[in-house]
């Protein structure tokens, strides 16, 4: 277990380093002038001062080192578009909304998805199975950036049941969370169903039956416990897709989160914001994957008890 954890940690660090380097390289190669339209109006002297201020006059390797040092300190630079604000500040401001949205969506996707998958598998080829699978298939075919506007329009505007946008109260959480979770919910339902059906065919379920255990005990203690293992392995990528999904859902529902910020910085070519946000997002994703790997290691006794062998 320890061995496993250390390996994962190592990979995480290497990945983070690699991503920051890639971001650095790509940022240095962006087309256009870092100072945007204003640069035409700069005199040579002012330009030199600005270059110094942003450290752009130093050699590339030097810039790289400075960059890495500041990253480690948590300094992501200053927004090009809004020089009065540091990137880190803007992130702090916008992150809570995205976090909340993501967590709600995760909760819905995991709980409803797993439940649907379990119900479908226990009623194999009967109506509940077909109904659950139809739902799943819809979830997979209608992406969140379509589901969002549809929900917003039909439920929000036409039916007026829930607000179609903004983030001002508890009822504002509902539609965006649903829109974001739907695709992931579908994937979880399908995976759980497949996993459950797989486990139900195993010999040890026959053993459990032969012991005279009730259907309920067999399902919960024997089937679900084993079926959930492969599903947990994909929790990492699931969270990743939820986080990336916030980009579009926030735009659609005007949620003041990181996603909106990101899109804004892309359209306004605010390079420091873009790189800062990219790094932030990547770090979250990488850390989340790492944590889910560790969680899986705990839950599967075969890994937990491995005595350091490969």
């Amino acid at each position, binding site marked *: 277990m320890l061995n496993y954890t250390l390996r994962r940690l190592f990979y995480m660090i290497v990945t983070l380093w690699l991503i920051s380097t890639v971001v650095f390289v790509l940022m240095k190669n962006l087309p256009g002038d870092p100072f945007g339209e204003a640069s035409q109006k700069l005199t040579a002297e002012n330009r030199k001062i600005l270059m110094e201020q942003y450290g752009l006059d130093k050699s590339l390797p030097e810039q790289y080192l400075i960059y890495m040092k500041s990253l480690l300190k948590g300094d992501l630079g200053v927004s090009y578009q809004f020089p009065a604000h540091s990137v880190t500040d803007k992130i702090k401001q916008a992150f809570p909304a995205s976090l909340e949205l993501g967590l709600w969506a995760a909760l819905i996707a995991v709980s409803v998805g797993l439940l649907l998958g379990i119900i479908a598998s226990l009623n194999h080829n009967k109506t509940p199975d077909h109904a659950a699978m139809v739902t799943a298939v819809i979830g997979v075919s209608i992406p969140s950036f379509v589901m969002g506007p549809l929900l917003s329009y039909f439920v929000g505007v036409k039916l007026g049941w829930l607000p179609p946008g903004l983030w001002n109260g508890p009822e504002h959480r509902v539609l965006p969370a649903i829109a974001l979770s739907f695709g992931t919910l579908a994937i979880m339902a399908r995976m759980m169903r497949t996993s459950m059906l797989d486990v139900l065919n195993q010999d040890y379920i*026959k053993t*459990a039956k032969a*012991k*005279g*255990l009730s259907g309920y005990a067999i399902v919960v203690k024997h089937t679900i*416990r*084993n079926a959930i293992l492969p599903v947990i392995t994909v929790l990492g990528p699931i969270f990743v897709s939820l986080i990336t999904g916030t980009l579009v859902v926030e735009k659609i529902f005007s949620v003041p989160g990181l996603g909106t910020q990101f899109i804004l910085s892309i359209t306004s070519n605010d390079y420091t914001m873009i790189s800062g946000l990219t790094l932030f997002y990547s770090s979250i994703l990488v850390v989340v994957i790492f944590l889910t790997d560790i969680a899986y290691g705990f839950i*599967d006794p075969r890994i937990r008890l491995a005595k350091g062998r490969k």
Partner: protein
Amino acid sequence: MSDKILEVKDLRVSFSTYAGEVQAVRGVNFDLNKGEVLAIVGESGCGKSVTAQTIMRLIPTPPSVIKQGSSILFDGKVEITKLTNREMERIRGSEMGMIFQDPMTSLNPTMTIGEQIAESLIKHQNMKHKAAIERAVEMLKLVGISNPEGRVKQFPHELSGGMRQRVMIAIALACNPKLLIADEPTTALDVTIQAQIIELMKKLQEKTDASIILITHDLGVVADMAQRVIVMYAGKVVEQGTLDDIFYRAEHPYTWGLLRSVPRLDQNTDEELVPIPGTPPDLFAPPKGCAFAARCPYAMQACLEEDPEHTKLSATHSAACWLLHPDAPKIEKPIEAGGRHHG
């Protein structure tokens, strides 16, 4: 008070599949006496596993169907075919136990073996968790696992195949069932481990006085453990008798075939083993007459037309074959079945 723990009459079990109905068991009759070890022998697909699992009602219905007229009487009073699922749950694990073939896949990988043994104790004997685990430790000791206190907290993947099979036996016997069904318990194990497991089962049987149905295709295991034997082919019993009846006085050509295809210590080493040619019939459309006729070197016209009934050869021994009809021609039995003739 009957001394028969199990009376099976005219058991018919079919499976409805997308390609039609498969008649897996086509009229099986046998009894099991208390404290006895009965072996069911036959090729793969002859219906022995289905019979065993039907006794415990382990096969889901659908797609399996226990046909009308079948009867499985347990302990002289309980009609298994008529019980509800709930009632069966009470019997399984407490009055009947089963050991499966593959110990590598028959245990839940995410539960400690202590928990897996304790489960039936908690359910059927209303034990508290702590007491159940203690009893589990005792069971592990009983089945010959060293360091039971340590093992009880381990997971199946930490045990070898032989040990896992012992754990299976412990699970099956935990609540002291009256009937134990062992479905090919040694097939997936090494020969040396096989011997150990057989020894263990014999010892436990003496101790607990349980009745055992032993399903196997290995005549060696039969000779080691069983007192009575039934031979199945294509869903029917073709011969049954005591160990001696079958090994020394067999009367059905299929049994001869089985005996001939297995090496024996008392055989001449330059004699060849003779396999039975052909393959078992398709159970979608079982043949009209005797199912073995197509592969039987002694087949007669009658065999193709009608399925023979059992002829009683002695108080313990019977076989279903037209050769046993008073008007049938006398043939020399092969040497392996007690005759002097080389088949």
